[in-house]
C-alpha cells in the first residue's frame, strides 16, 4: 500500500513537472513582440519612470526568456519549488499574494455549491432509480441531460437577465454591494449571500446532472444485487431497504466522485466567476491570462495540475479505505 502510494506520488510529481514544461513551452511560443507589448504597457503604467527597453530586457532576464526553453524552464522550476512564482504583471504584486487573497472566495462558493448539489442530485438520483422506467425516471433523466447540455455562460446570462434585469431582485454582478462597508457583520454576510445566489445556482445546475446520473446508475446496481433481494425477502420495510442497505452502498463510488471534485474546489469556476465577476481565483486568472500575464498563467496552470494529481491520489486512497477489495493492489 505505502509502496503504491509512494510510486503514485512520484508519478504525480513527474506529471506536474512535465505538464508545466508543456505549458511553459506554449507560453514561450509567444512571439517576442508580445513580450515587447507587455513591456511597453508595463512601462506606460509606470508613468515614465521605467523605459520600456529596460523593462523588456529585465523581463527577458526575469523570466528566463533570454535563454532557450529548457534553461528558462529550469530557472522557473527552481524558483517555483522554493515557492517563488514571481510577480504578476497585471496585479503588480507577488502571484502567491494575489492567490491567497482570492482563493477563499472560490472555495466558499464551491463549498456552498457542493452542498446544494448533493442535496438536490442524490435524492433525485435515488428517486429515479427506485421508480425505474416510470415517468419520474424519464423526467429526472431528461432534466439531468439538459443540465449537462447547458452552456454555463448561457444559463448564467439568462439568470442575470431574469433575476437582475427583469425582476430586479438580485444584484447583477460582483461579490459585495455598494453599501457593503457600512453594513453590520450580519448584513455583510447577507450581502455576500445575496450576491452568491446566482453564481451558486449556475454552478449547481451545471454539476447536478452528472451526479444525479451517477447516483441513479449506482443505486440501480445496488438495488439489483442479491443482498437487497435478501433484505426484501426477509420482510424488511422498503424504507429501511433503500435508506439503510442500499444507499450506504451507493456511497462507495460516490466517494471517488467527491475526491475528483478537488480541482474544481480550489481551481475556481472560471466561466461562472467571470460572468458574475466574482473575485475568485478563476476570474482573476482569466483576466491575467487574457492580458498575457505569464507568471500568473504559469502559476495557475501548475496549480491546477497539482490539484488534479492530488485528487487522483486521494481518490485512490479513498477507494482503498471504503472498499477493502481494492486494497490488495
Amino acid at each position, binding site marked *: 500500500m505505502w509502496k503504491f502510494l509512494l510510486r503514485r506520488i512520484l*508519478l504525480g510529481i*513527474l*506529471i*506536474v513537472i*512535465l*505538464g508545466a514544461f*508543456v*505549458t511553459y513551452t*506554449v*507560453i514561450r*511560443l*509567444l*512571439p517576442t*513582440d*508580445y513580450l515587447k*507589448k507587455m513591456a511597453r504597457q508595463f512601462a506606460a503604467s509606470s508613468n515614465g519612470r521605467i523605459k520600456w527597453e529596460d523593462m523588456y530586457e529585465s523581463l527577458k532576464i526575469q523570466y528566463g526568456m533570454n535563454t532557450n526553453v529548457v534553461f528558462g524552464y529550469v530557472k522557473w522550476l527552481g524558483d517555483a519549488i522554493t515557492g517563488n512564482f514571481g510577480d504578476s504583471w497585471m496585479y503588480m504584486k507577488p502571484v502567491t499574494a494575489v492567490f491567497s487573497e482570492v482563493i477563499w472566495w472560490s472555495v466558499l462558493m464551491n463549498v456552498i455549491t457542493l452542498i446544494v448539489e448533493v442535496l438536490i442530485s442524490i435524492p433525485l438520483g435515488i428517486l429515479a*432509480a427506485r421508480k*425505474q422506467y416510470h415517468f419520474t425516471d*424519464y423526467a429526472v*433523466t*431528461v432534466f439531468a*441531460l*439538459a443540465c*449537462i*447540455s*447547458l*452552456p*454555463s*455562460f*448561457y444559463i448564467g*446570462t*439568462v439568470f*442575470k*437577465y431574469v433575476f437582475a*434585469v427583469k425582476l430586479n431582485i438580485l444584484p447583477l454582478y460582483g461579490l459585495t454591494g455598494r453599501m457593503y462597508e457600512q453594513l453590520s457583520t450580519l448584513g455583510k454576510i447577507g450581502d455576500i449571500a445575496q450576491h452568491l445566489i446566482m453564481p451558486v445556482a449556475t454552478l449547481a445546475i451545471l454539476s447536478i446532472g452528472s451526479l444525479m446520473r451517477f447516483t*441513479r*446508475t449506482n443505486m*440501480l*446496481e445496488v438495488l*439489483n444485487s442479491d443482498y437487497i433481494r435478501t433484505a426484501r425477502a426477509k420482510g424488511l420495510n422498503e424504507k429501511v431497504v433503500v435508506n439503510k442497505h442500499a444507499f450506504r452502498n451507493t456511497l462507495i463510488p460516490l466517494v471517488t466522485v467527491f475526491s475528483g471534485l478537488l480541482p474544481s474546489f480550489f*481551481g475556481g469556476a*472560471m*466561466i461562472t466567476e*467571470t460572468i458574475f465577476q466574482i473575485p475568485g481565483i478563476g476570474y482573476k*486568472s*482569466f483576466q491575467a*491570462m*487574457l*492580458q*498575457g500575464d505569464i507568471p500568473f*498563467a504559469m502559476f*495557475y*496552470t501548475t496549480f*491546477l*495540475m497539482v490539484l*488534479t*494529481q492530488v485528487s487522483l491520489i486521494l481518490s485512490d486512497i479513498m477507494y482503498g479505505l471504503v472498499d477493502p477489495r481494492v486494497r490488495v493492489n
Partner: protein
Amino acid sequence: MAKDNKAQEPKKQEVLQENEQMALDDARRVKVLSPGMLVFKRFIRNKLAVIGIIILAVMFIFSFLGPLFSPYSRAQIFFKDVEEPGDYATGKYVDGSLFYPSNNTALNSAVLKTLGATKVAGKYSLTAGEEIPFAAGTEHYTLKIINPDPQKPSCAVYGTTHIATAAKGEVTWYDESFVDDALLVAIRENAAQENPGTELAYNGMTISVEATRLEIKYYAPSSEPVAVSSYNSYSPMLGRAEALSANTEFLHNVENAIKAGETSVALDGETYTITGDVMNDYVLSASDGTPLFNVVREFQSKTLKIEEEDADGNPVTRDKDFLSTLSDPTAFIAAVRTAISEKAESVDFDDNTYSIEENDTDYLVSNVDGQIGMQVVIAFDPVETKYDSLSSDFNFINQMETAIAGGAGSFEYNGETYNLTAEDAGYTVQNQAGDNVVLASNIVYGPAKNGIELTADFANKLREAIVNKQNKFSFVDQYGDKTDAEIELKVGNYYVRTQQKTSLFDSRAPLSAKHLLGTDVNGMDVFTRLMYGGRVSLLVGFVVVIFEIVIGVIIGGISGYFGGVVDTILMRFVELFNAIPTYPMLIIIGSVMDGMRVDATTRLFMTMVILGVLGWTGIARIVRGQILSLREQDFMVATEATGIRTSRRIFRHLVPNVMPLLIVNATSALGGIILTEATLGFLGLGVKYPMASWGSIINQVNDMQVMQTNWWIWIPAGLLILLTVLGFNFVGDGLRDAFDPKMKR
C-alpha cells in the same frame, strides 16, 4: 374476460399447427435479426434517442442547407435610411473683409488678410483711392481703398517694386523706369531726416519706406493689383441652361416639340427656339439667340442573344452588341434617322427589315425576331455651365467694387459690360445677354458637408430669408428638387437645416418580416448568422471528434494491445495530456492569437487542433481498456493461433469490437466540444468576425445594453447550442443503451 380470450387464441393456433406436418418453412423459422439491426431496433424504440435524432437533423438542415435559401450572405450588413433634419449649409454676415487673391501670386493670403484688414480697420475715416503701404514679412504691399464705406470697406492690394535704396547719402536706383530728378530730390530729403517715416508721398503716389540702420529702401506700388479685399462674398450663379436642365417638364416638352417637328417651346413667357433637323441634331436657343443646349439624338445599342453555330456545328447562344452585327453601323444610323424624319415604321437594311416603334419620347428599333436592338433617345448637352471663373477673379471683383463705390449701375470687364442690380442684401450682376452671372452679398455661406453643392437659387432664397427675418424658405437644390429648409440663428451664424436621408447601420433592429430574428450589433441578420454559425459550431465538433478518435484509437490501441512497457509509457503520456488544464490553455493560446492578429480561418483551424490535442486522452483510455479486456478473450487467442498478422489482428478483429463504445463516447464528446467552442466564442477567444459561431454570436451579450434590451441577439443562439448538445447527449445515451442493453438501468 377480454384478457382470457386473448390468452386462449394462441393456444388454439398451436393446436392447429400441431395437426399440420412439422416443417421448417420461412414462416416458422425463428426470426433472428442481425446485430446491427438489433441495435437499430433498440435505438428506434428509445423515444429520447429519436427526439435527439430529430433535433440533430433539424439543426443540420438549418445550418448546412439553410444558408442556401437565405436571401442574405454571412456577413451582410444592413443599413437603414433615416430622414432627419441635418445641417445643409451655414451662412453668416461677413465680419472681416473677404480676400480674393490672384491665382498666380504666391501671396501669403492669411498674412495679407490680417495685416490689410488691420490697416483698414485702424483708420477712422477712409477716402476712395487712398493708399496705405504695409509690410508683410519681407514683402511690401500697398492697399488702395476702393470703397471707403466704413460699414463694408473694400480695397485692392498692390504689390510693390523696389525702386531705390539710400545709404550714407548715396541713392542707388533699382528700377530704371522710376529714375526722375524730382523723385531723387524727394528721396534725398527723406533720407536726410533723422526719422524717415514709413511712407513718402510723391506725385499722387505713395512710396513706402523701409529704414534700417544702414540703408533706407523705397518701394513704389505696381500698377496691377494682386488681390482684392471686400466685404461682399462673390458666388457664381447657374447659367440659364443649367437652371433649365433641372426643369424636367420643360425638357420633356422640348422632346415632344422635336418629335412633332415644331420649332419653338414656350416657358414662363419666354419662347425658346429649336433649330436643326433630324439628320444633324438640334440646338435649343433662348429668345435672344443665345444657344443653351445641344440637343443630341443618342443611338443606344443593346446586347442581343444571337443563336449561332460553333466550330463543330452545334447551336450556341452568344451575347452580341446589336450594332456590331450590322455591316455598316453608321449607314444604319443614317437610315434610321431618315426613317424617323419620314415617320416610317420600319427601315430596310442588309436585306433585313427592322421595325421602328415610337415610345413616348424615344424610339425602339427591333430586329426580325422582335428583339429590341437599339433605343433612340434625346440627350441635352448644356452649351454653357456655371460662371465660375468670374466670381473668383479678383480683377472682376476690383471692377465691380469700384462700380459699387462709385454708385455706377454697370461696369466693363474684358470688353464686356456687366449690369449691377442692388438687392436687399447685395447685388446681382448680369451679363449683356441678361443672364445672372455673379451674386455679391455681405452674407457668406457654405455647404455644411461634402457632397452638397449650393445653388444660386439657394443663395438668393437664403439672402431673402435672412433679410426678411424669415426662418423658413424653400429652394431648388443641386438635383433640381424643391427642398424646404429651416434657418436657425446661433451666435451670429445662420444654420440651414433640411430633411436629409442618412444611411445608418441597421443595428439591433427588432424582429420583422425582413429580419426574422432582428439584426445584431453590427447590423447583420441574426437568423442568417445563426445558420452560418451553426455550420462552424457543428463542423468544429465533427472535425475535433474525428481528430480525437484518430489519435485516441492509435495510441489506445497500441497501448492496450502490446501492454507492458509500451503501455506504461503511453499511459503516462496520456496522463500528462490529461493533466494539462483545457480552458487555461485555450485562453492563453487565444490571447496569443489575438496578439498576433491571426486571421479568422487560421484561428478556426488552430482552435480545432488545440481542442483535439487536449481532448483525445479520454478516447485513448476507453480504447485501451476495451482492448485490454478483449485481448484475453478466446477469439483473440484463436487469431494468434491461426497466425494472422498483428496489424490485421488489431484492425480487423479488435477495433470493430471497440467501435460501439467508441461511437457512444464520440457522440457524447461532440456535445462537449460544441460547448467548449461556444464558451470560447462567448469569451471572445474563439471564431472571429466575419465568421460566426453560436458562441461568438452570444458574445455580444457582454454589452449590457444588448442583454437588457435585445434578447433576440443572444437568446436564440443559446437555445440552439442547448438543443444541439442535448440532441447529441440523447443520441449518445440511446446508442449506449442500444449497444449494450445490460447497461440500461
